[in-house]
C-alpha cells in the first residue's frame, strides 16, 4: 500500500511533489496516483515519464487514476 499517492483535491505542485517523494525512494514497480484535475494529471505524467516510468491514465468517477510502471 506504500505505493499509492492520494493527491485528490490538491493543486500543483503538491501532487507532483507527493509523487516525486515516492518515486525517489524506489527503483521500479507500480505506483498508483489519484488526482482531481487535468493540470495535476499532466504534471504528474510528465514527471513520471521524465523519470522513465510508463503512465496509464483512466477516469475514476470525478478523478483520474494514473498507474505508473517501471
Amino acid at each position: 500500500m506504500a505505493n499509492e499517492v492520494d493527491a485528490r483535491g490538491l493543486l500543483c505542485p503538491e501532487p507532483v511533489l507527493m509523487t516525486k517523494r515516492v518515486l525517489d525512494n524506489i527503483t521500479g514497480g507500480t505506483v498508483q496516483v489519484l488526482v482531481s484535475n487535468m493540470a495535476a494529471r499532466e504534471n504528474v505524467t510528465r514527471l513520471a515519464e521524465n523519470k522513465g516510468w510508463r503512465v496509464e491514465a483512466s477516469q475514476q468517477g470525478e478523478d483520474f487514476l494514473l498507474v505508473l510502471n517501471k
Partner: protein
Amino acid sequence: MSKQRMLLIAAGGSIGVLAVVLVALGNPANMGYCIACFLRDITGGLGFHRAAPVQYLRPEIPGLVLGAFLASLATREFKTVGGSSTFTRFILGFTAMIGMLVFLGCPLRAVLRLAGGDLNAAVGLVGLAAGVYIGIIFLKSGFTLGRAVPQSQGNGYLFPALMAGVLVLLFAKPAFVFFSAEGPGSMKAPVLIALAAGLVVGVLAQRSRLCMVGGIRDLIFFRDGHLLYGFGAIFVAALLGNLVMGSFNPGFAGQPVAHTDGLWNFLGMTLAGWASVLLGGCPLRQLVAGAEGNTDSAVTILGLLAGAAVAHNFGLAASPQGVPVAGQVAVILGLAAVFAIAVVNRPAVVTGGVSIGK
C-alpha cells in the same frame, strides 16, 4: 516535441503578439496584458478605489475568464471544487496584489515590460524568483493549504457570471461606474478587440495550463523547464513585436508605467512570488482556475481586488514617481503575513486538527 509543449509555445507566442497589438491599438505601453493592473482598473471602475487615473472595466479580464470557462466546458474539465483554506487564499491574494502594485505589474507584465526593454522588470523577475524559491522551501517542509472537495456544480458558475456582469456594466455604462479621463485607465484598445483578445488568451491559457510562477517553480523544484517555454514564448514574441513596432527602448529610466527603485521592485515581486507559489499559481492561473470551477481561486481573485482597493485608497501603490513609504511598510507587513501563513500551514501544526486524505 510533445503536443502539450507546442500548445504552450503557441499560447505564449499568441499572448506576446496580442499584447503588442493591444498596446498599438491603445492600451498603456508594456501593458498589452497585465492581470494585476487590469484587476486594479476594474476595482477602480467599480468605484472600490478612487484613484482617478486607473479606473476602467478592462474587457480583457472577463474575456479571459469567459474564454477559459467555455474551453473548460467544451473539454468537460469544468468541475466545481473548493474548501482548501479559502480565507487564507483571500489573504494571500490580497498581499500578492500589494506586492504587484508596488512593482507595477503581475508576473505576466514583468515579462512584457522586459520585452519592451524595461530593465527594472529584470530586477522584479529576480525578486519573483527569490519569492518562488522561499515558497518552495516551505512546500518542501510540508506546507499545504489542504484539499479542495467537490461542491454543487452551480457554485462554480458564479465566478464566470460575475465576470459577465462586469461586461454588462462595461457596455451599459450606468452612472455609478468610473472610467478614467486621463492616465493609464484612459488608454485602451477598442472594447470588442480587447474582449476578443481576452477570449483567445483565456482559451489558450486554459488549454496550455500556462503559469508564470509555475514555470520558475517547476524549474527550481523539479528541474522541469516545461512551463518556462510559455514564459519564453511570450518574451520572444513580444520582443520581436516591439522591435517591429519600434517600441523597444532598453534602459532603466523613463520606462512607461514603471519606477526605478530597485529594492522595492525586487521586494514587491518577492512578495508576489512567495504568495503565488503558496497559492499554487500566478494571478493569470488563478483566473483560469476560477473559470474552471475552482471557487477557492475565485475567492483569491476577490482578495486581489480587495488588495487593489486598499493599495490605492490608502496610498500604498507605486507610481512612476516611486514607491510611497506606506507602500514600503505594506510590503514588509505583507512578507510577515505570508511568512506566518507559510509557517502555520505545515503538517506538524495541521495534524493536531482534522486528518486529511489517507
